[in-house]
């Protein structure tokens, strides 16, 4: 599904190149649940963003379902990532001005899903996540765990093949964190490929493979 070949990422600052990722080679098969670990600043988020096509590598090849991502234009990238990839972030990243319902609806709007089907899918997911009663509340009116729940719901509402989760439990109590991890595990069981970044060994165990990053190198 995902093939990274010699992916390198650096930032040029005046004349100095700061390397964030060096020579990353990685293969991810469909149905895997990968945990990325490593100390702060080791390049985990950067790696995830590159896989999620939110960021471009400085060098190297990236193939997604045998398509060369590194050669694509911005428009194609948007098209590809919006139909295949869902994101979950540590800071939830919900749109503050929209209610739960509207937040969930927005990705479908960008995919031009018809009104009727859209409403049905939002209703279904609200039901699945047990947040029907919260649908008219704004993010600020929810607890952190509830917000992350909505964020996960938003990530999967487009039925993506791949979910990228950057420290999804980082801001949550362990109880709430566990709930989210269980949810991800269940999604993985149903066939979704998942790559998560985590600092906790315990959470990393939910996955079936662990990748350790150190200073931009993979040390498996």
């Amino acid at each position, binding site marked *: 599904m995902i093939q990274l070949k010699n992916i390198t990422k650096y930032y040029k600052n005046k004349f100095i190149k700061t390397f964030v990722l060096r020579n990353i080679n990685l293969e991810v098969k469909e149905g895997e649940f990968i945990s990325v670990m490593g100390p702060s600043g080791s390049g985990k988020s950067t790696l995830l*963003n590159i896989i999620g096509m939110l960021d471009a590598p400085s060098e190297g090849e990236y193939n997604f379902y045998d398509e060369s991502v590194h050669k694509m234009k911005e428009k194609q990238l948007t098209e590809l990532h919006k139909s295949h990839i869902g994101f979950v972030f540590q*800071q939830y*990243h919900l749109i*503050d001005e929209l209610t739960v319902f509207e937040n969930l609806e927005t*990705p479908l*709007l*960008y*995919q031009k899903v018809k009104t009727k089907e859209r409403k049905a899918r939002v209703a279904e997911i609200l039901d699945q996540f047990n947040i029907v009663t919260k649908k008219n509340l704004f993010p600020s009116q929810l607890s952190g765990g509830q917000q992350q729940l909505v964020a996960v719901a938003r990530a999967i509402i*487009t039925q993506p093949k791949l979910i990228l989760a950057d420290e999804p439990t980082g801001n949550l109590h362990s109880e709430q964190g566990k709930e989210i991890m269980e949810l991800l595990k269940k999604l993985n069981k149903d066939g979704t490929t998942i790559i998560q970044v985590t600092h906790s060994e315990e959470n990393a165990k939910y996955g079936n493979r662990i990748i350790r990053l150190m200073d931009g190198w993979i040390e498996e």
Partner: protein
Amino acid sequence: MIKNYIIVTLRNIFNNKIYSFINLLGLSVGIACTILIIVWVRYELGYDNFHTKLNQIYRVVTEYDGFRTPTTPGPMAAYLKSEIPEIVEATRFKGDNIILQYRDKSCKINGINAEPMFLDLFTFPSVKGNPALALDDASSIVLTQSGAEKLFGDEDPIGKVVKVSNKWTATVKSVVEDVPKNSSPPLNFEYLYPFKVYYYWRDPDNWTNNSDYNTWVLLDEKADFTEVNRKIDELIKRHNPDPKLKFFVQPLSEIHLNANTHRWDGPHGDINTVLIFSFLAMIILAIACINFTNLATAKSSLRSKEIGIRKVIGATRLQIIKQHLGESFIFTSLSVPISLIMIELFLPSFNEIAGNIYSINYLESWFIISLISILIITAFFSGLYPSIMLSSLGITKILQENESFSNDRKNWSQISFRKVLVIFQFSISIIVIISTLLIFNQLQYIFEKDLGYDAENLLYITTGRNYSPEVYERFNHEILELSSVVSTGSSDQIPTDTDFVLGVNYFHNDQKISASSPAFMIDENFLANYKIELIAGENFKPENKTSLKESFIINETAVREFGLKNPIGSYFEAYNRKGKVIGVVKDFHFENLKEKIEPLVFMYFDECYFLNIRIKSNNTAESINSIKALVEKHFPGHPFIYSFVDDKIEALYKKEVRMGELFKYFSFLAIFISILGLYGLVAFIVDQKTKEISIRKVLGSSVSSVVRNLISSFIIWIVIANIIAWPITYWAITKWLQNFEYKTEIDLGVFVIVGVIILLLSLFTVSLHAVKAALINPVKNLRNE
């Protein structure tokens, strides 16, 4: 999707109340001003548009030695029509005013003596009767509806017999619709009187005795008027080879804004004023757009998270641009109803200042089209930069909140773009304020300039026409007996309103020279009454009846321009009178102060068109009442019409004064919108600095350096704005002053004062916010982060 955008926009509007208020107010005021200016400009551009044959109608202009008048000899119309095939129709007429009397009611109205063909050229629809037939019959008169109402009220005017200027009788045979207000004079008549009546006393078919007829032609639809002008030129050269003399036709559509004539015309509009106001409208709208742009960019950090999320969940860059353009569209759309309410509120005062009754029909297509255009243009230009800027923000940068934003290079370019906009805005405000003040300086100067005569407490009245000299004499005598009257003097015209120009002859170096000069017909009391100083020779002496018609008094300019070395006693000819110069008066401004003083000739007459009366300054109302009683006694049925000379002078500059007044209000609004934008921007910048200020406070260091930084950067912006604005203003005002023959020096002090005031005003705004930020409780503020 659109619903989603609208929801976000509206919630943002409610969540950022100050920001939204500033934007909505700025945009609404901007749109309201623009619409009012459009109404004004449209009225000006719409002059004479109501004629169905507008593009075929031309008037004949005479040019002699570069001096142009829209008048010709009487036979010109018929002659041109017979000689030039492109001229399908031609007619002559002459503007005049008469006193109409019906039973015990009378009024003075302006109108035209016209031929029946007049109605073939121009579009003046009839309400009752056939006006063309009426104009063919010397005993009839045509009135407009409001002209008829003045005299007859609700009665049917048709068939009524009226007295015309106490001399003739005429039957009302037809009533035409009122002439639209934007009809160029003299086509803004209230009556039409048959041209034929001139045959009783004027011999209008004579080429040489009177050249004061208006000649208008209707060209063939396909005719090219420059070709017609060439033919006219050829034709005239055959009869009169004088190279200084030219005739040409001028399109009716150009007359209001581009008349370019020197005398016996107007008042007309001015294309420059129209351009200036159109420009002002664009500037005001631009300021409002800049506010929006500035505030939206300043606020971008608040919106960046939402944009990042939208991109993550699948929005393309184009969709983000569309969303933010849509947002400015929503803001602008919300401003439109507010601006319409403002227009309703402003319109009466606007009308008062502009001296006209403009009305807006909100359902008319031009209004809807302009409104929609303004809406689209404003929304587009307000939203363009913010939407492009916001859509270009990188996702990863936005979503990594720990990333410090302000060090980013892109952020710096935004700040400098914003700086450019703020400086631009201030430059415009400074230009507008300084120009307004300097315009007022000049107008003030004109009003207070020494006229060369004393216009205060001087009024003039018209007397009944065609009475015997004894009646005038008795009347004058009784006026002088009134205790409130100081002195009187009669004349055929009033300074500022001269339209009598004569050909004169004199000798220079033993050579007889012809020239033309404005002339006044006066009695022996006129000069003393006006306090016009006689600097050489003597006044007219009525005792010496025979020499009176052989005497001339001239002004200093005439002495100078005619090169008369010993003016008193020198030979002079004018108006079929031959004689000598007996006196020289000091120059006085008998015309518009915009123009240079010309040579002037006084001649004696013993009729009385205008009686000029100098009254005592106390109890004006009573003086006028007693004068009125005497007018009614001696000239029964004559309407009492009086004016003060100084009012008349003011009226001359009405156009400039009104322009100045309008300019004042619009520039005030432009400044208001700028300050509003500044307020919002400062509030926002200071708000962003609040965190820094709070941290400094917690760390126990002083906040003054933050405030000092903020203030010094604003000072630099405003100084730059002044440097840009001053030369532009100086250039523009110098250009405007060229319209005036007598002008003030440009006062550079005004520049400095305005610069300083703007500086203080913005420093006040900045300090207000900075102090507020400095006083804030740091702990509470940091906890919010």
